């Protein structure tokens, strides 16, 4: 048990990811306000992006731009660039989703005059 916890504490970045992810889900599930739900959703998406970036981190490594084009490439000097590229695309996807969702929330507010899910469901019937 002690070794397990010690193992976890050596990777605080993954603990941060798990906390952010669960926090996002918690907000999404428990809040009735649509915009708060979206905040939770965005937190969850961002935590996944954080996870991708954190897998590429390496101690003592630098940004993945070649230091010299003439010498042989030393992979251990650079962080892994691929998760960063994935992250870039995932951020774009996340922003687009947020845009569509805010547009929908805005249309719902104009139609029902409320952002509270319970109010809206009452008005739907």
């Amino acid at each position, binding site marked *: 048990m002690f070794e397990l916890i010690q193992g976890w504490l050596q990777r605080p970045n993954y603990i941060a990811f798990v906390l952010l*992810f669960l926090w996002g*889900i918690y907000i*999404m599930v428990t809040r009735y306000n*649509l915009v708060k*739900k979206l905040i939770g*959703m965005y937190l*969850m*998406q961002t935590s*996944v992006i954080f*996870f*991708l970036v954190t*897998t590429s981190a390496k101690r003592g490594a630098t940004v993945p731009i070649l230091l010299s084009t003439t010498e042989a490439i030393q992979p251990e000097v650079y962080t892994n660039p*691929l*998760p960063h590229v*994935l992250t870039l*695309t*995932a951020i774009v*996807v996340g922003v*687009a*989703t947020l845009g*569509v*969702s805010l*547009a*929908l*929330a805005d*249309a*719902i507010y104009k*139609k029902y005059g409320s952002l509270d899910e319970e109010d*809206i*469901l009452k008005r*739907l019937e």
Partner: protein
Amino acid sequence: MTRHLPAIIFLLPLSLAICLPLIGIKHREWCRPMAFAVIAGMVLVSIANLVGVLQTGTIHYAFGGWAAPIGIEWVADGLASVMIVALSLLALICVIFISSVLFPNLGSRIVPFYTLVLLLVGSLVGMIFAGDLFNLFVFLEVSALCAYALVGLAGGKALVAGFRYLILGTFGASLYLLGVGYLYAETGTLNMADLAERIPLLVTSKAIAVGVLFMFIGLGIKMALVPLHGWLPDAYTYAPDRVTPLLASLVTKVALYGWIRIMFWVLGAQAVIYQIPILFLVGVLGAMAALIGAFLALSQKEIKRMFAYGGLSHIGLILVGMSLGNQTGFAGGVFYLLNDAVMQAGLFFWAGAIIHLYGVRTIEDLVRLRGGPGWMSAALVVMAMSMIGIPPTGGFFGKWYIILGAVEARNYLAIVAVLIATLLTLAYFVKLFERVFRERLSSHDALTIHEAPLAVRISLGATTVAVILLGLMSDQIVGFLLRTAMPPGL
């Protein structure tokens, strides 16, 4: 030239989707014919692609000339090419239906509407061809964003349904992305062929097991597998009637196709997580989905909602076929998937047409169809025969091959599940027919009879004929799938 066909199929709808907002400023009336022309072109190119793939073998398209493990790769093999032909044909029929004069005039919103439809079709092409997991995620999200916007287009209740779809869909996509991250962290690659080589060595890895679970739950939400289907009934019921066929026949089916890709081409049919074969788990989930979906359909009052639940039960049946782990079951599952796409399109064409022609939304109202054009009732009967599984329609042969596969695998529970789902499907269609054919028409229900517009007649007629043709040619199609579209190691 053949080598570039997969990219051309994708670029056709995408480039028009990008140009359409610019063209639409001046010439709003061009949207309709241009979208139709581009998708018709897509049908031709995808048939050429299928012929090319059959002659020269699988096409590996490397974007930007970067070869597979490093660059982004698209794979056009037998199964993908067949799916692309089916996708573009269905998209063509749906675009004809969308353009019908039956539906309310969208005014200036017609330009973004067609842009979204084209973008949706293009991203589904990308999902089918995608050769790496992250590319699949990107196209999954593009198609989902278009679908959220299209559902919300109707306003009113559709907005709330679309919002719920968005929240759940994004949750699913995040889980899928997380799973991809796990697999990448463990194997260091995203390319499907590359992963397939590395995963068997790491089969005991917890990261891979959890990553696969996350990915499958994410895709399960996207394909509306029954415990995860919460978004689908409302979204399909309240979505604009002209878009529902497009969503119902294509979006969930292509997500299911993505699952098939990962399950059979990356993990392999024999993959095991914590001593449980994944296919066994999928078989149980599929059987549950088939039964629960059909049960829920039985208790619905609204026609569109009933068909939506019927679709859920068919997703389950396809998974049952896939889970049998032999070639007959796999081919049966793929054949049933093609059939189901056509049937869902046809049923929602029918439901949309009667809503706008006669104002019939619920099963109660169906009495008013009395004295309506006979061919529409005939189309419904053919669709229902196929949904239930009565020869000579495609649905019967799909179920037939799934049952043959189950006999081969000695999986008798799967046979029982398919048969019970069939009986339940029969039950809810009987409920529908009773109102159409048996109830007496009271005088105040009498109604002036409108003939359906040409576009509706074409699209409904085409799907009806397609269902019968799929049935009559089932032997050739399944034989063809068995020869060309089998995953390795099955």
